[in-house]
């Protein structure tokens, strides 16, 4: 269980209960992470097709992160500002990018370390058999 500030609004907080209710991805990212930039376009694509993605902004600076998203697009429904990396430590994060697959109850069904792309989505995540509700990423 956690409660941390949101990236967009320092006064608003997000807790684990905010991530429940529907299958989602939790993407660990940071502006200092080069590979995160590489996967970002695909995350935008996933979000556009209806996949819910939450962001865990890991050990980053608020201003830099906000500008980064403004420039590269924001696929995240919510962004957790984990400045100290405490939530990351509790999750077992050791770097970025990482992506967790959450089911409706918020149980972690899969953890992917490294860049998220079409191949990973197809080979590792679609096979989990989770019903993503809305149309999954189209004809891939």
């Amino acid at each position, binding site marked *: 269980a956690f409660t941390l500030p949101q990236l967009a609004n320092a006064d608003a907080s997000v807790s684990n209960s905010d991530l429940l209710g529907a299958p989602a991805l939790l993407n660990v990212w940071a502006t200092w992470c080069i590979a995160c930039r590489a996967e970002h376009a695909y995350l935008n694509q996933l979000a556009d097709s209806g996949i819910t993605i939450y962001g865990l902004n890991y*050990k980053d600076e608020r201003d830099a992160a906000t500008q980064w998203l403004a420039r590269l697009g924001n696929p995240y429904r919510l962004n957790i500002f984990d400045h100290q*990396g405490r939530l990351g*430590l*509790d*999750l*077992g*994060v*050791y*770097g970025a990018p990482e992506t967790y697959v959450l089911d409706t109850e918020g149980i972690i069904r899969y953890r992917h370390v490294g860049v998220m792309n079409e191949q990973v989505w197809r080979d590792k995540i679609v096979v989990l058999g989770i019903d993503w509700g809305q149309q999954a990423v189209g004809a891939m």
Partner: protein
Amino acid sequence: MGTVKTAPAANSSGRVAVALHSCWLLTICLCLAVPAHAQSNVNNELLPETGVSELREFSSLQLRSRYYALLNQLRCPKCQNQNLADSDAPIAADLRNELYSLLEEGYSDTEIREFMTARYGTFVLYQPPLTQYTLALWLLPPVLLAIAAGLVWRASAASRAAGNAGTSKPGDSSEQ
């Protein structure tokens, strides 16, 4: 130690003696290598100069020595084979801080290990727990050692047999 073979050792008992010494050398190397690989030295309090060091103030000497012991028993999750004492990785620094906090909060060594494995898996323990999956890992070194010892014994028996059957050379005391 052992026999000094007479030179030139062109005969079969000389070659067997060389082989025998090589077997002993190998066995000794195995003995030294196996424990070092399977576990870290947990007995001695390490000097603070070992590996990466941050300045820390401990509320007791016992906490300090437990800290350094655990630093060597916990693997950096991001690294292939570095412990928390040696690794520069940011996650290692985070975990060192966490370890310090947990110790000061009064966690026991067992609780600390549980804390770490709950988050990072048994991969972070240099001494993996003994389960049906790790049985081979634990049993293999002593089994290999027993096999090596057996081979050495047989080579030694063969050399003694060869020495007794062939001509005995002055100064070659292995069969006396």
